[in-house]
């Protein structure tokens, strides 16, 4: 059924920290690695070693430059580079689900994960049209829609060690920029993180009510000294102190 559940028992999702993401793309690679050989059709590549390579990815990392506005105190503020991982936000009001004509797209009542039943998917692409985030990609080889499954085949997988029962992107992130948990539980680690850091929705005006949250980057530190070589041009301390100071004074007295 492509009608959405009125509510879900849990709201599993990701919290992505734009402050600590270093843009290494490890999540992109681990996502592709896990999802190409597990749930559903593999994530194909077209012309991978040729002149015009492209392929299906469920997670991609953009990079943005944010230029703060000039103020009288800071007439020339330095721009900030923000790395921005983007995958399915498992929206509460997922427009991709309701447009599906076959019932292949659905949102799970038990945990809120949005999935595609690939054996029902006709590859019409309408769900990708309806998604404002570009979270769904049609696989060019298989002709079915692919999307983030929140690694549904890892998080409940008793065959994996417990520490591996998180989405591949979360497990692999070397800077701990990705967090996984139940955003429907206000006491969960992820919910507390969102509350503390002012977690935000992407495109809230689209009315999708995304479950995944983004933690905004902290403002840049400001340094008193702008030119790091400037201190070397003049002695920092005219009069040495400590042992050298005593030696200096002792030699002076001679």
């Amino acid at each position, binding site marked *: 059924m492509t009608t959405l559940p009125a509510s879900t028992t849990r709201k599993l999702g990701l919290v992505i920290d734009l402050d600590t993401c270093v843009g290494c793309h490890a999540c992109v690679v681990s996502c592709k690695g896990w999802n190409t050989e597990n749930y559903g059709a593999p994530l194909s590549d077209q012309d991978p070693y040729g002149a015009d390579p492209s392929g299906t990815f469920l997670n*991609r990392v953009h990079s943005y430059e944010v230029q703060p506005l000039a103020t009288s105190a800071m007439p020339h503020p330095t721009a900030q580079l923000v790395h921005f991982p983007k995958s399915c936000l498992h929206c509460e009001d997922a427009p991709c689900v309701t447009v599906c004509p076959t*019932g292949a797209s659905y949102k799970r009542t038990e945990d809120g994960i949005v999935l595609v039943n690939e054996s029902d998917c006709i*590859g019409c692409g309408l769900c990708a049209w309806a998604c*404002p985030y570009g979270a769904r990609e049609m696989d060019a080889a298989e002709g079915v829609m692919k999307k983030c499954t929140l690694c549904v085949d890892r998080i409940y997988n008793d065959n994996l060690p417990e520490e591996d029962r998180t989405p591949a992107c979360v497990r692999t992130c070397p800077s701990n920029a990705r967090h996984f948990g139940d955003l429907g539980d206000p006491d969960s680690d992820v919910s507390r993180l969102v509350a503390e850091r002012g977690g935000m929705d992407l495109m809230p*005006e689209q009315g999708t009510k995304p479950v995944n949250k983004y933690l905004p980057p902290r403002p840049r530190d400001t340094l008193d000294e702008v030119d790091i070589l400037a201190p070397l041009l003049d002695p920092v301390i005219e009069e040495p102190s400590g042992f050298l100071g005593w030696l200096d004074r002792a030699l002076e007295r001679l």
Partner: protein
Amino acid sequence: MHPAPSVIAFTTLSGAGFGLLIWLGLGLPDVTGWVAFAFFAIAYALAAGGLMASTFHLGHPERAWKAFSQWRSSWLSREGVCAVATLLVMAAYGAGLVFWETRLAPLGWLGAALALATVVTTSMIYAQMRTVPRWKTPLTPALFVAVSLAGGALLAGQVTAAMVLLALAGGVQVLWWMRGDGALASSGTDMATATGLGQAGGVRAFAPPHTGSNYLLREFVFVVGRKHAAKLRMIALALGYGLPLVLLALPFGHALAALAVLCHLAGIAVSRWLFFAEAEHVVGLYYGAR
């Protein structure tokens, strides 16, 4: 949006075909026998031909029958249900006209209503897309219905009705373009809301996620030919509405009528190409494009 030839062919041909079915269902023209057969053959060729074309862009056309199941939530599913229901009802109605020279008027009205519903459901597939501000307006169904009724009247040989409806549809088309040009800017979605980074200052796409292209860019960030949009709009207006009006004003003849129909369909095809090519999907904002 990528202007897929299959979808342009579908909306153009099926729009005209279902438009003709509306007029036939209303008994305009009131024809029977072989003449009725010719009208119904044209209507079915256009409507069903367009439907067939629309399956060409599917990844798995062999599962297309599953698309009839989700009519409760999906406009695409509703369109499929309406289209098949129209074709079945009008087949029974047409058989009565062609083989028994009997006009089952209520069946015709039902068929006409279903044909109109098919056109509305088609337009709602686009008009529901919050992600494409240019499409998300009641003007989109108005445009599709007006064009379908005008094209249907043209095919049904209803000269006066066709002239009025062509002028009306042309007017709606111009209104739709005028509104559409400011739709993305006034939608409230921009790079700041897309990234949530607007608080800190101006946001600029610094590096895309990959060096090559991808499905999203090919499907949603189609910018080829937008620079010719103004010229193409004039061509669409002239071919789709202006020329057919002039041809209808001349003394009626089958050759001129056929030319008017061909002009109209070509013009509508151009306007449908623009319908997709000019449409900006908000996902383009993540790539600093529109």
